[in-house]
């Protein structure tokens, strides 16, 4: 199994990561993974973060099927093979 985790990118943020649906990223916590993505794709970070250590509150982040807000937030530990889903509120209808 890869040492990395898979990060699922929502449609709205794909243009900021070169139109990729998912990325394999190394990192021991959710925060580390997102910081590493932010370094490579600064526009992605601008959309995701409200401030340096706070995710916009209309975007949820899940590790596998659990919301990080109810684990250890950006410090939530990750193990290889975990799936991190970035899930914005869907407004259309």
């Amino acid at each position, binding site marked *: 199994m890869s040492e990395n985790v898979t990060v699922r990118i929502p449609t*709205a943020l794909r243009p900021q990561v070169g139109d990729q649906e998912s990325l394999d990223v190394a990192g021991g916590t959710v925060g580390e993974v997102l910081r590493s993505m932010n370094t490579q794709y600064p526009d992605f970070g601008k959309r995701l973060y409200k401030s340096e250590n706070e995710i916009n509150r209309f975007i949820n982040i899940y590790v596998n099927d659990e919301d990080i807000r109810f684990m250890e937030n950006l410090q939530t530990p990750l193990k290889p093979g975990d799936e991190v889903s970035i899930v914005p509120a869907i407004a*259309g209808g």
Partner: protein
Amino acid sequence: MGQDLERYHRQMLLPGFGEAGQRRLMDAKILVVGCGALGTVIANMLARAGVGHLVIVDRDFIEITNLQRQVLFDERDVAEGIPKAEAAKRKIAGINSQVTVEAIVDDVNHTNIEKLATQLPGVGRVDLIMDGVDNFETRYLANDVAVKHGIPYIYGGAVGTVGASYAVLPHTVAPGETGETPWEKVGRATPCLRCIFEQAPPPGVNPTCDTAGVIGPAVSIVANYQVAEALKILTGNLETVSPTMLNFDLWSNIFKQFKVARAYDVGECECCKKRNFEFLDGKFGSSTTTLCGRNAVQLSQKSNGQKLDFDEIAKRLQAHGKVTANKFMLRADITDNGEPYELTLFNDGRAIVKGTKHANVAKSIYAKYVGA
């Protein structure tokens, strides 16, 4: 089996449904907020299932671009230019004459939603609120009413090829107490929409169906999932209501059920935990002013202070007409249903929609092309 029940035979065969479940459906009153892509599928399926009373509220008229996904409408409705709620009522009369439909052509806002859900003449308090809307402001209003009055509310949202849905069985009392609703008595209350998404996306951040597109299957799947959850609730099968949020992307072949139950226990929700109904009280959301003599309406957003991303909005609107922007404002020409509008956006989210004197039309243009 009485003749009035024969048409429901196939669903009454299901375990946990039966004649008793069908009778409960026939006694039920449901508020369908919004009758576009989600709302038409919801109203259609609920009417076929035999829900006794549907209150359908929508502010819009039918356009040719709706027909690709809004299943209750046809070309004749477009030619006649009738409101969506009225067209839905007309169609349902031919689908199931046992169903009573109240069609209300109006904008749903903080001044009228409580009345629609609890005091409509001849209807009174509804048993369920179905989300067929295209913006988060109205969703939070529906969520506020649901929590305040202890009415189940089923969220649905879809854009592009993605969709999400989630059933709120609201907490009606402070944490630690047990409320009197059937779902609280059996320990099945769920977090509210604001527990899950604490804030609405600021205007212009999220794609809308009118800027990013949408395929019919995405909305149909969401709406039918909402209806399935509604049938479980209305027939009293509360233990089968999903405690997770459905989230899918048909183009990426991803279906997820995210766990959300802890959002109530751990979170500090203003709405269902602190019982502070900020949208219903008019603290958040938009207000409109008709600008005299200018054939224009101003929309003011009470937002969280975030500035609009004009570059992103300009990119999306270019497919609809000429767009110009500077640091302070963005101006776009938009043709909607054959009518020309000029949309001026300020970076705090305020907007002026030129080409109409009607607040409903201006709010619709804003929700469709900017998103809220």
